[in-house]
């Protein structure tokens, strides 16, 4: 329909849309195309350059053609990069693209560019050429610089937050567990996220009458607000224990404190097991009071394991007169008591065998934990905590909440481990029900 301006159209190529516009002849397009164009011999010497690039760089054609190499138009960093990486790459694969470089203009200023280059093989006496297209990228580079700066800042910020979270977390846990004669203690804290403080806590400390108070709990939520409540809970439990270590009364006191705090828009509560340990002749007696917390596990010297339920214990800090329940148990040599937070039992088990998923809706669950503990029995506090630590590692990403583990055990007497169900355990073997506190 329209007459062609190009006297030698490509026979097989698609027809250019503007093929009929006499003003857009190829030579004009080359000289004034929106991007810079330049061709070099394989040794880098410039043989052709378009007006656009000359204009950008402020050179006259005769200053470049036959006199300069492409890499000499680059910043020093760019030149080294070109010679060591890009030129070999171009030689080997014939083309490169999307390369960010800086060109040096005649007046010494820098021009950020994106470069694509392709080799035209020499044939029929024509030398091989490297064709380079140069795209001005000033705005883009400024944008990238801004992005990079923002990313570096975000990295620094994140590092700072992690540092803060770690410090805060450490302040909520005892730096070391005390020594209690005749008792072995071990604890483990599994951090699910380096960025956030979890709400789990535990402690163990002396109270009156040669006895020891201890607790392990979990404040709802995460982050700084949860940490503040965790700190409050910790100190309330310790302070209350100092005047009266009875676990039920300690929990009632904490409930009053937290409930008074809970008037804002962000109510916080916690679950706790609070205990009182009384060392005895052969072992120790432990009274536990539970407030909405997963039951403690008793792993016995006779190779059995069972939960110590405190039925009816309510969440701490929600109701003004919450009810709590207590239970008392005797730990004989070889027995181990294990307290944990629900980060463990609530861990997702998508990668584990299907059994747990069916039983507990894709969570690890209390049944699986009981099986696990039975597999450990008999054990020691240190071994039990190490095993749970390994279990948490194994659950990997499935553990999406922090998990605290505290174990108290009476070291097995020399004869006891060899005789399951023997003199080491006063309670009947397999009898999981401990006697209730009055």
């Amino acid at each position, binding site marked *: 329909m329209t007459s062609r301006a190009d006297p030698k159209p490509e026979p097989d190529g698609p027809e250019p849309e503007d093929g009929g516009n006499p003003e857009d002849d190829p030579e004009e397009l080359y000289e004034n195309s929106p991007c810079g164009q330049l061709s070099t011999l394989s*040794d880098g010497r410039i043989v052709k350059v378009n007006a656009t690039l000359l204009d950008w760089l402020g050179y006259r054609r005769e200053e470049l053609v036959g006199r300069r190499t492409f890499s000499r138009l680059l910043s020093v*960093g760019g030149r080294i990069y070109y010679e*060591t990486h890009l*030129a070999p*790459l171009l030689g080997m694969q014939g083309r490169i693209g999307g390369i960010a470089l*800086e060109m040096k203009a005649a007046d010494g200023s820098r021009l950020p560019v994106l470069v694509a280059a392709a080799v035209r093989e020499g044939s029929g006496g024509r030398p091989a050429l490297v064709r380079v297209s140069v795209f001005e990228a000033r705005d883009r580079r400024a944008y990238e610089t801004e992005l990079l700066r923002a990313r570096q800042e975000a990295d620094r910020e994140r590092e700072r937050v992690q540092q803060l979270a770690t410090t805060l977390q450490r302040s909520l846990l005892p730096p070391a567990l005390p020594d209690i004669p005749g008792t072995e203690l071990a604890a483990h804290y599994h951090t699910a996220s380096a960025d956030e403080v979890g709400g789990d806590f535990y402690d163990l400390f002396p109270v009156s009458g040669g006895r020891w108070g201890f607790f392990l709990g979990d404040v709802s939520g995460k982050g700084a607000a949860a940490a503040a409540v965790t700190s409050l809970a910790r100190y309330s439990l310790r302070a209350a224990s100092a005047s009266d270590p009875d676990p039920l009364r300690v929990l009632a006191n904490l409930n009053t404190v937290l409930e008074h705090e809970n008037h804002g828009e962000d109510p916080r509560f916690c679950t706790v097991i609070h205990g009182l340990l009384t060392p005895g002749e052969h072992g120790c007696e432990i009274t536990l009071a539970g407030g909405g917390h997963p039951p403690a596990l008793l792993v016995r010297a006779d190779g059995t394991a069972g939960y110590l339920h405190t039925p009816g214990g309510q969440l701490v800090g929600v109701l003004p007169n919450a009810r709590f329940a207590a239970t008392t148990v005797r730990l004989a040599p070889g027995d181990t008591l294990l307290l944990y937070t629900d980060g463990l039992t609530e861990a997702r088990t998508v990668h584990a065998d299907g059994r747990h998923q069916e039983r507990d809706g894709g969570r690890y669950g209390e049944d699986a934990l009981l099986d696990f503990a039975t597999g450990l029995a008999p054990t020691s506090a240190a071994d039990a905590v190490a095993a749970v630590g390994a279990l948490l590692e194994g659950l990997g990403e499935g553990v999406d909440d922090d998990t605290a583990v505290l174990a108290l055990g009476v070291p097995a007497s020399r004869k006891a481990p060899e005789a399951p169900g023997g003199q080491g355990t006063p309670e009947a073997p397999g009898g999981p029900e401990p006697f209730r506190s009055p």
Partner: protein
Amino acid sequence: MDVRRRNNVTVTGREDGPVVMLAHGFGCDQNLWRLVAPALAEEFRVVLFDHVGSGRSDPSAWNEERYSSLEGYAQDVLEICRALDLRDVVFVGHSVSAMIGVLAVLREPERFARLVLLTPSPSYIDEGDYRGGFSRADIEELLESLESNYLGWSAVMAPVIMGNPERPELGEELTNSFCRTDPRMARVFARTTFLSDNREDLAGVTVPTLVVECAHDTLAPREVGAFVMNEIAGSTLVTLDAHGHCPQLSSPGPTAEAIASFARAR
């Protein structure tokens, strides 16, 4: 540790031929030798490898401390020689690998028969009467450019940027198949390469040495080739009529011939 896997070692050529070990420099990998290796393979047993952090080396073997000095790379060269039980090695080091070869020879001279230093530079920075070709500010600019990722590492960074570890082929398509390098490792290698000063080490080289320079090298000026030859007693200098810093690509024939004639003359 499997040294062959770590350094992606490949062996070609005549099994009973003298051993020629080809070491690539900063910015590339063993592919750089692909126009030279076939010519050498007719006569020699050719050993190629990628430095850790380059090409198809094992990325898990990289550690910043070891590869922050050329000694770490020289150690790798010696470990490859031991693992393959290579003796009377003709070591050909391009660019920074020339100095890596010098360090390896200083440690275990008995392992090496000859040394070929291809476009070497014992120090890139001008100092006093010595002309390395760059000012300290130039090199700082290079390192800063690498640091800020403005030199086009985006192409090799593609898999990282795309964040699609479960679909690595997406990154693969965007990534150059040659001379691949992790930008973090490249930054360390660049720092090691361009800030090292091995001028003092040259005098200790005791094996016969050939220095090969390009007449129009954009990175190492002619003075550097002469300096290296003068420092290594008994060494000879060959100047190729070649452009750029990689004569293996721009003048593969003469480069292979220079290596072969020196390697066979013993």
